[in-house]
Structures are given as C-alpha cells and as structure tokens.
C-alpha cells in the first residue's frame, strides 16, 4: 500500500517535474526565439532601408554636385546643344537626344528579333534544339560590354562601312521624308552603329524574358486555337502575345534600361561628337559615353558639375522610364482583370 502510494507519488512528482522542465524549456525557447526573430526582422528591415538610403544618398550627392551647373545654366541646360569646355558653356541636349535615339532604335531592332527567337524556341523549335539554343542566347547576355564594343569597332564598323553603308547612302539617301536619315560619308561608326550594337546586347535580355513568359501560356489555349485551324502566327499574335503582354512589356523595359545606361560599347562606336545631326550615319554622343570620356580630365568646377548634372539627368531618365513601365504594367493588369 505504502509502496504503491510511494510509487504513485514519485511518478507524480516526476511527471510534474517533467512538465515543469518542458515548460521552462519552451519558455526559454520562445524567449530566445522571439529575440532572434526580432533581431532577424530588424536586420532585414535594415537591409531594405539601407538600399533606400543609398538611393537617397546618391540623388543627394548628384544634386549637390550639379548645383553650380544648375545655378549657372538653369533650364537652358536641357535645350542647349553646345558643349564647350574652353568657354565653359555646357548644354545637355546632344547627349540626351543621343541616349534616347540610340536606345529607341536598339529596341526597334531588338524587340521583333527577340519575339521571333522566343516564338521559335517555344513553338517551333525541335525539342533537342531548345536547350542548346536557349543557353547560347543566355551566354550572349554574359559577354562583357567592352567585348561588344571591340567587336563593333574592329569587325562590324569596317564591314558596315565597306559593304552596306555606301549602298544605303546611295539608294535610301535620296528618298523623300526619310532620306535625311541616311546621308553623309560612310565611316562605319556613328549613331546607327551604336544602336545596332546596343540591339545585339539587348536581344538576349528581352528574349530570355519573352521565352519564360511564353512558356507559361496554358497549352489548352494554344491547342484550342490550333484545333480551330489557326496558323502558328495567329496563335502567336492572338493567343500567346495577349496572354503574356505584361511580361513582354517587362522584358522590353528591362532591355531599354540596359540600353540607356550602356557605356563602353557605345563609346567605342558612336563617334563621340557633341553635334546634333539629322543623319543616323553621323557621329553623336550619349550621356554615359560623355561621362566615360570626359570625367577624368574635366578641370574646373563648372565642367565637372555639368558632367555630374548629366549623370543626374540619366538617373532621372532611367527612373521615369521604369516608373512609366510600372504604371503601364499595372494598367494592363487591371484591364486584363476587367476583361476576365
């Protein structure tokens, strides 16, 4: 009896002991966990805020650096085509126009080509080719930009000047309305060459995004269309493209962002002249190539400050483009939602 009660009480004690112990462990664990969790949350928040801080600091530094130029030239800076370090007269019109024009022409070439590649890879290519072709295109994106520049300068430009440009100047140069775009001496380098090199650099980015979004189109939709007798082109243009336009838009913007900021490849082939010229075969300049060319040797406050302001302008252009793209994508999504 006694033995029994003893054993009962012992097991009871043990039991309470165990629960007590477990409870303490849990309590300790939660306390420790909470602390760690809080630390982790704080750390991630710090990282997120840190990026924002860097962004703000960059804008502030650019603004501070460009103050002398802003004060001196004001709004005139954006519409002035002169760039004269001797007389300290600076205007950003030529580089701004050059940046926008080269990027737009690059997209004009790159987007249709990328679309074609992506459709081929997802719809038409034999399975065995998809992997190697896709990888090859992704590898193109990994080539450093200076290699593109050197290829453009040493291989493409001489070929272009010797075999294509003379023909184009002779035949298209006299056309009404667009003829002025193709005049001048065949030098091989210039705005068009820069845009062409940019297009090649942008193609892998746009293609990769397009292929990825094309792959998520439900086979059911495509097969239904094929079943109704659609051609591949009809499936691509009326099923795949409408279904993926948000993603496609995103890819195009990614390409544009890359083209706007590209420096070395453009510097090699654009001809680096601060001149506004109507012909695409004449030399021009972009914001980033001006910076790359002139920053090291810029002497004097106004000169450096004007270059910093150019940097600020590029920052703003890129920012506006990305913001516009975001708005566009949101709108498309909303409209797609309403339609559904």
């Amino acid at each position, binding site marked *: 009896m006694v033995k029994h009660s003893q054993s009962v009480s012992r097991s009871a004690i043990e039991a309470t002991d165990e629960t007590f112990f477990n409870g303490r462990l849990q309590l300790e664990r939660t306390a420790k966990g909470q602390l760690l969790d809080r630390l982790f949350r704080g750390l991630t928040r710090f990282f997120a805020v840190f990026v924002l801080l860097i962004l703000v600091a960059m804008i502030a530094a650019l603004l501070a650096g460009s103050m*002398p130029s802003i004060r001196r030239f004001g709004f005139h800076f954006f519409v002035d085509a002169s*760039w004269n370090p*001797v007389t300290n007269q600076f205007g950003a019109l030529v580089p701004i126009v050059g940046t926008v024009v080269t990027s737009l022409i690059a997209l004009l070439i790159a987007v249709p080509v990328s679309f074609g590649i992506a459709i081929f890879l997802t719809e038409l290519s034999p399975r065995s080719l998809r992997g190697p072709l896709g990888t090859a295109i992704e590898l193109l994106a990994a080539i450093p930009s200076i290699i593109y520049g050197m290829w453009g300068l040493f291989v493409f430009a001489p070929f272009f000047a010797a075999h294509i440009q003379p023909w184009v100047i002779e035949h298209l140069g006299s056309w009404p309305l667009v003829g002025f775009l193709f005049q001048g001496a065949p*030098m091989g380098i210039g705005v068009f060459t820069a845009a062409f090199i940019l297009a090649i650099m942008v193609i892998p980015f746009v293609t990769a995004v397009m292929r990825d979004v094309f792959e998520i189109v439900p086979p059911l939709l495509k097969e239904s269309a094929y079943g109704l007798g659609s051609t591949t082109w009809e499936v691509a243009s009326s099923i795949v493209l409408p279904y993926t336009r948000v993603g496609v838009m995103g890819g195009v913007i990614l390409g544009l962002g890359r083209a706007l900021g590209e420096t070395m490849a453009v510097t*090699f082939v654009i001809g680096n002249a601060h001149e506004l010229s109507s012909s695409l075969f004449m030399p021009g300049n972009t914001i980033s190539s001006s910076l790359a060319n002139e920053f*090291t*040797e*810029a*002497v004097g406050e106004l000169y450096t400050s004007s270059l910093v302001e150019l940097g600020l302008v590029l920052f703003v252009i890129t920012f506006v483009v990305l913001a516009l793209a975001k708005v566009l994508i949101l709108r498309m999504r909303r409209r797609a939602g309403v339609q559904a």
Partner: protein
Amino acid sequence: MKLKSMYHFISIITAAFFVPASVFAADPGGTSKQVTGAGSTFVYPVLSKWADSYKKETGTSINYQSIGSGGGIKQIQSKTVDFGATDMPLKSEDLAKDGLVQFPIINGADVAVINVAGVKPGELKLSGDLLAQIFLGKIKKWNDPALVAVNKGLTLPDQAITVVHRSDGSGTSFIFTNYLSKVSADWKTAVGEGSAVNWPVGVGGKGNEGVASYVKQINGSIGYIEYAYALQNKMTYTQLQNQAGQFVTPEEKSFRAAAVGADWAHAKDYYLILTNAPGKTSWPLAGSTFVLMQKTQSDSAQGRAALQFFRWAFKNGEAAAAELHYVPLPKAVAALVEKTWKEQIKAADGKALAIGL
C-alpha cells in the same frame, strides 16, 4: 564650395581604402619608402619604366596612377599624393592659389596621321594654317586646291576628309589645339585651346589607340596622336611646316631641336608650351609633361624622396626615355629645374628641402 567638400569627402573615403594597402605594402623592416603620384597618362610608360629601375637600385617604390592630368591636378590640390603630373601647365595664379610648384620632367611630340590611298608616311606636307582649316571643316576634300598647291607631285584623291579627334580630355589634344591657336587666328577665335574643346567637325576616338584605330579604318581621315603610337601602328604621318617656314619630318632630331630652342629660363613657373617652337629644324607639335608638388611639404621625408626620384630620372633616365620615343629634358633645363627645387620647395619648418639630395 559644396562640390569641393564633396570631393574632399570622396578623397577621404578613397584614402581610407588605399591607406591600409600602402601600410601592408611596406616591408616589416620599414626601410623601403613609397612615393605616390597621379596624373598624366602620356608620361605613364616612361615613368613606370623609371620607377622599375629606381626600385631595383634604391628600394624606394614609386606608385604612379595614370588617371589623367585633370585627376592628377585634383589629387595634388587635395594633397592625397606626393606629386601630380599634367600635360597642360597650370598658370601662375592657379599655382599660387593652391601653393604648388611646377616643373617639366620630359618632352614628347604629337604627329598628324592620315589615311589616304597612295600617300606614304612623310609624303604629305601640311602647314599649320592648312591643318587648322581642315580641323575647322573649311577644307573638305583631299584634292582641295590649297592642299594640292603645297603638295606638287603628289596625286591627292577626290575624297571627303574625315577629321578624327580625341573624345576624352587629353594633354595630346591640348598640345594640338594650342598649336592651332598659335598658327591660326580663325582657330583661336572659333575653338581655342584646351585638353577638351568644342570640335567643329569630325569623330572622337577614346585615347590614342581610339584615334589610331579610327584613322586606320576610315578612308580619307586625318587625326593626331602621340609619336610613339604612330610608330607602333605604322601609320602615315605627315610633314609639318614650322615657325621658320621649313617642312620638317617627325623624328627624334626635330623633337630635340624644339626642346633645345625653347627659352625655359625666362618662362615664369615653367609655363611654356613647346608648340610652334623657333628653329629651322624644330618640330612644331612638341609638348612637355609637368610635375606639380606642394611648395610646403608637411612630410619632408616624402617630399625629399619624390625629389630624389626625379633627380635620379634626370641623371639616369635618358636611355629609357629615348627607347620609348620621349625626348629627355636638355641638361641645362634639368639643372634649372633642380635650382627651382632648392629655391621653392620647403619643409614644414620653412627650411629648403632640396639641399643635398
């Protein structure tokens, strides 16, 4: 002002990155010294060759960063280096403002190079005025009567001239535009001189190699590059008419003639540009690289080490310089420069630094 403080901030950060490196670079014994410099890319090949031999002989290493003349000026102004090097001399008032002293260390030359079918190196003759007219875009074709008149016996094609200039700011451009400003009133008023100018026509190549490759690729082009690049790339250089009216070929003899003819003794703060130099055999497109140092050296050991290096270079560096197609300073000019050190460079306590180097 804000801009200046920003650069100050940046240079402090940069210094923070570089200081540990130089600390570790010093050997544990602490016997080896390190002199830092920054600036002109033009002088870099010869300076690094000198530095290599100097390190072997004395153990002192010269750490020179060829970031461009403009960068070199900024660095010496903010005292982050022991010396700066520039291809474009500073005016006396700018030197005084930052308490700097300036002296030449080496001379070099630019040449005009062309790519015209059938014309061999040294065949085409150009006067300074013709060169200016071409770079102003007023002479547009190779068979322009003005060009033909000077080059009787050469068949020049009916081909458009494409002007090639530097796209980056450069001492080479400074020498070239300074020369054109001296010989052409049109150029002086329309463009002027500087390491970067507003070029009226043409395409811009980055660096000497950029200009060289553009000239090689574009038929009918004309550009200007350093002599060494023209030799290395086997380019078609031209003759130029000098101040005495003679047409001269770019070669060591004519470069030396330009350097010897210059009147350094009467140039205040050595503000003298060798372009359009007097003398019958002088090459008109010559220039110099100048070193900038603080007049008052806060660390006198560093200042002395830098001066010792330049003294060594004046004495022993001639062979290396000639090998790389530079033109060494004439002995008399080197002596003049050493005198300037004694007179102008002081330690923090005001004592002359360059006594008994």
